[in-house]
């Protein structure tokens, strides 16, 4: 077991004990310095501000459901009668008339169908979206479009984060990097103890200096190890999952001013968890991570993500999910379709949307089995 000699200057100064070692021989010792980290937090990158939703936030569920029933053509008196019992239907599905109506408010060829599997067949609720000027994320297209956001901290223009724009006027999706959002705090808490951990490795000739690096994202066999306070423990050892589906996640980047940056044209493909993203794909993968004095990393990853993936994370719980955190899941789908800014297909349809995720990571040891050469990032596909 080898442990790389690590400079303690520059990036290395703040990245303490972590290093990569190999269980299996991989030939002559590599000259590169490597540092690995394990994911400690994951959630949407948000920067909500007072007044950033013109006309206020989207309505609460009871108001929206009454509107939805109107859209279905139900008489006002019947809606009023049903809504008097809203929230008092109890656990019995038979008695939950509102739930039954809302669960099948899609109309496919005129037939009532499951709302959440057929969001395009639900009348657009025309939800409000973020009209504010700031958001966290990346300038994915390299343009400083007038309608793009600016970073609230750095002032960088041209920030593309249409997922934030689409979801940002719904209460559980509002927050800041410091606070997180209610949605993602719940989701992360639900999956962090059972989801195979994500690993991030930074490799370069000298991580104490500015210069080119490789940034590698992979997955562990183990889940992230947390302490009694729910914080990810540093310097734990993880076995890298040799699954070839994630071997292409090697990205060219650079360290500049102690910040690790990736501004790639390549695609990230990760596997996360059924609860949110069984597949997690980002085209034009971007990453920006800064380390603190304890060697922990924090920052953003971003790119264009398939709308299906984003919507699945929101809507796979069906009516329960809508009742928990959204006034209108199909409305959020419609917004994402309208605001999508990823590459257009041959028919001019855009099926992916710019987004950014806030991540935290702590130093970790990564045990790597020799499973062959690393594939190229270009071998990845964004829309699996």
């Amino acid at each position: 077991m080898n442990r790389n000699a690590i400079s303690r200057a520059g990036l290395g100064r703040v990245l303490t004990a972590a290093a990569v070692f190999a269980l299996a021989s991989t030939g002559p010792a590599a000259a590169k310095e490597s540092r690995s980290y394990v994911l400690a937090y994951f959630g949407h990158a948000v920067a909500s501000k007072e007044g950033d939703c013109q006309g206020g936030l989207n309505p609460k569920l009871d108001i929206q459901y009454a509107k939805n029933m109107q859209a279905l053509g139900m008489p006002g008196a019947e809606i009023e009668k049903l809504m008097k019992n809203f929230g008092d239907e109890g656990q019995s599905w038979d008695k939950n008339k509102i739930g039954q109506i809302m669960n099948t408010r899609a109309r496919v060829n005129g037939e009532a169908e499951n709302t959440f599997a057929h969001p395009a067949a639900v009348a657009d609720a025309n939800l409000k979206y973020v009209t504010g000027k700031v958001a966290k994320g990346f300038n994915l297209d390299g343009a400083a479009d007038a309608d793009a956001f600016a970073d609230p901290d750095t002032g960088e223009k041209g920030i593309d984060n249409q997922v934030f724009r689409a979801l940002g006027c719904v209460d559980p999706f509002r927050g800041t990097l410091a606070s997180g959002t209610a949605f993602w705090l719940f989701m992360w808490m639900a999956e962090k103890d059972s989801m195979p951990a994500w690993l991030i490795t930074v490799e370069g000739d000298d991580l104490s200096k500015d210069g080119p690096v490789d940034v590698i994202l992979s997955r562990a066999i183990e889940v992230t190890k947390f302490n009694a306070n729910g914080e990810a423990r540093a310097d734990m050892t993880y076995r890298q999952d040799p699954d070839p589906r994630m071997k292409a996640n090697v990205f060219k980047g650079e360290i500049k001013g102690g910040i690790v940056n990736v501004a790639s044209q390549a695609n990230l493909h990760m596997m996360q968890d059924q609860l949110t993203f069984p597949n997690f794909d980002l085209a034009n993968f971007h990453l920006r991570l800064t380390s603190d004095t304890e060697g922990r990393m924090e920052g953003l990853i971003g790119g264009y993500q398939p709308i299906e993936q984003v919507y699945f994370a929101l809507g796979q719980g069906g009516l329960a999910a809508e009742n928990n955190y959204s006034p209108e899941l199909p409305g959020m789908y419609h917004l994402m379709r309208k605001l999508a800014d990823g590459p257009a297909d041959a028919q001019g349809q855009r099926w992916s949307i710019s987004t950014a995720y806030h991540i935290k990571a702590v130093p970790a040891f990564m045990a790597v089995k020799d499973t062959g050469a690393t594939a190229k990032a270009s071998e990845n596909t964004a829309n699996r």
Partner: protein
Amino acid sequence: MSVSKIAVCIAAVSFSGAALAATKTVEAPLSTPKGITLQPLGKTQGYGLDKTTAAVVPRDKLVFATDAGLTLYTSEADQPGKSLCVDACAQTWIPAKVMAGAVPVDGWTIIARADGSKQWAYKTRPVYSFVEDKDPGSIGGNSPARFSRGEFAGSRGAVSSEVPKDKPLAKGWNVAYFFPMDKRPLPAGFAIKEVEDAMGMVLVDAREHTLYTLDDAKRAKTCGDACPWTPVPAPAIAEGIDAFQPVWRDDGVRQWTYNGKGLYTFAGDLIAGEANGFGVDKAWKPAQIIKHFAPDTVTLTSNEKLGKVFADKTGKTLYMRDAFIFQSGAGHSLKRGSPIRPAVGRDLATDPHCKDDCSKSWRPFLAPVSAEASGNWGVYTRADGAKQWAYQGYALWTFDGDSKPGDVNGHDDYQLFMSHDAKTKVDIGTPYDGPTALYWIAAHP
């Protein structure tokens, strides 16, 4: 051998008769003869979309069933080894047929009926299916869909298999249960549990850790200082019970034996339900009381990600196609992280409902023409007439992306399904209630 080395080693255990005969082992009896299957009851079949049922209801009871999965019953009116249910009775209670080539196994015998036909009997009682049962997991004509949370299963859905009270089972008829089993005399501290990874009902100790038998007693002496196999100690005053006898070893330890073989625990088993010693050393085997049937062409391989999974003869992992089920708390990537739902497997059968052409990389795990269902294994007939093995209702497949034993590169391969227009209905071959997914999952015991 360290625990970590044991954990990462890749082992294959063959179920073939030839391999087992070579070890000169006294085999544990099979739980089911050819044509008799095992089925969970009620909601544990995975009917409906009440998410709190299939995911959390314990599979607390298993019944014997026909090859089609229909529950078997016994009649209190019958005599041992003799069926008195004839004529109209036999139109309602269908005698369990005996397939060609089937042979009796533990507790199962073949009896002759008055009309000369043959019928299975369990513990001397003739067994029958019920004409009103249509679905696997039924009792007395009550489909598992009726075993709903609340009305029949308790307010929290914690009991899966109570007979619905509004349609009770006919008087004088009883369900033929495989589990719970009749109590057997055991020494203090021993129990019999189903250990899935050991493929049967297995002896466990007071911690519910799997016990193993050693075929060749000489191996115990050559195991070395770091031997991971620890003799199961017998108290000095312990007395033998039937097949369980304490013996004094040369090293002064008094050890329990079962059927004349020393009993051991394995250091690599850290929690109840593990059988990590299975396949590590052919001399040591799980102390099976009853073993479940598995086809000769199926092996069990281990990998560091999922532990034991089914594989074909070459060690290629076998997979099931499953449908997404929402479960708060996640963990689906873990072994047994998603509930087995035989009803979903039967819905999909041999059609994986791929978005793209799966035939390019997923291949059916074919069964011989003579294959018949038994235990947890079933057989589907494909459109081209070929037969395909199924496990607990799920047709089995191999993945071209796996190149060596232990590879599980197709595990958790997801395809999302949702409609993007008002003309196309989502059809995944099984019920859903939101944007949904089908995925491949490594098949495991």
